[in-house]
């Protein structure tokens, strides 16, 4: 599977089974790596990359099946076995990124589960399985609080959505004012900074800014978080 950021040129023939070795457009795996890094750096939950993910999962499955078949074949040559090793190693590394991507999302989903349940707009960014888990998790924590604490309190102290001045809200939301490092992938349209001035990023520029400022640019794919 081609697609890892190529380090120093290694004189290895491109392994069969790669994504049509086009140089210019991003490969699936490069796309996933970009979204994975974005997800890891963004305070908010980003839209799930369902297409990239399912294409890669398909690929992993086919690759694994092919490897199994070749390994079992007594006629496989020595060179083929060496290539199988490479492919397997590559598959393991792709799996790692996929797994980390999914787990990063899962972490945020659990952290903001009650916010997600209350906000349809965020729900659209989740896959069905993620949304189901968010609902179950929110329900689970609420019932744990209920049986451990709330049901022993007087009735009007039992709510989980108190809104008291000077205390943090009871439903945690992503902090969009958190600073992120942003790398411009293209020429970007101007964005407005919190102090009212505008900023226009050139291609290749890296800036440190509150997440809210670049939220739109990130959604359009003009920038990536680094």
């Amino acid at each position: 599977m081609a697609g890892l950021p190529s380090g120093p040129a290694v004189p290895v023939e491109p392994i069969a089974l790669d994504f049509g070795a086009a140089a210019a457009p991003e490969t699936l795996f490069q796309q996933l790596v970009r979204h994975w890094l974005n997800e890891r750096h963004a305070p908010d939950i980003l839209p799930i990359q369902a297409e990239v993910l399912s294409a890669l999962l398909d690929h992993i499955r086919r690759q694994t099946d092919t490897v199994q078949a070749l390994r079992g074949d007594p006629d496989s040559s020595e060179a083929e076995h060496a290539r199988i090793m490479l492919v397997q190693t590559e598959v393991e590394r792709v799996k790692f990124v996929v797994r980390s991507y999914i787990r990063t999302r899962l972490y945020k989903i659990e952290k903001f589960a009650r916010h997600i349940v209350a906000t349809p707009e965020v729900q659209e960014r989740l896959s069905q399985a993620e949304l189901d888990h968010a609902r179950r998790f929110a329900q689970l924590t609420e019932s744990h609080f209920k049986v451990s604490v709330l049901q022993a309190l007087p009735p009007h102290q039992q709510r989980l959505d108190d809104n008291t001045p000077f205390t943090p809200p009871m439903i945690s939301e992503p902090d969009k004012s958190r600073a992120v490092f942003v790398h411009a992938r293209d020429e970007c349209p101007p964005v407005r900074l919190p102090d009212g001035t505008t900023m226009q990023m050139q291609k290749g520029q890296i800036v440190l800014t509150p997440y809210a400022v670049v939220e739109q640019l990130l959604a359009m794919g003009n920038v990536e978080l680094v």
Partner: protein
Amino acid sequence: MASADSRQFGDLATQLVQESRRSTLTDTLLKYNDSLVRTVIREQRNLEELINNAIAAQADNAAFTGDAPALLLYQTAVLRNKRCLLAYHAHRLDRLKDMYWVLGAALPALLADGDLRARLSPHEVDFLREYNASVMDFRGDFSAELDVAASVTHPPRDLHALVRVVRDCGVIQTELGTIDFRKGQRFMVRRADIEHLIVQGYLEEV
């Protein structure tokens, strides 16, 4: 009630939060402090009574407003105690979830630890069981391709690993067929096949 000793409202709740903080700093899960939780809840009920009395006193005499500052004080204490109670429980859930994932989402391995079990409240065990069920559901969606519960701390370097068996773990399916791991033996196996056994302490990398 606070007159008998020098305690203020909220002192006990502060102790709860301090326990959470100690737990984070020492990276351990302390024993569930049932008695302290109950005491804080009792304080909440007392405060509720004080509030009701104050309101009743005011209703009896429309001109009397002397208790308004006291009401504010009680109400603040009530809200603060409640948040401390919830924070204490939420913090414990977070820690439990961390421990669960470190073991590769293996609930039986987590609950088999009697030492840990003794530090949990019964509700926390229930929580873990239901949480595990939800995670298993989610994990099932990817089961054809990969195990989302496997480690995400270190990217894989080698395909294979040389391991030593520390505890008998019976017959395991691997890429090379089934292997019966017995204590003291060494194997060269595919990492992905046995990573969960390393995490759970059955195997050790040599």
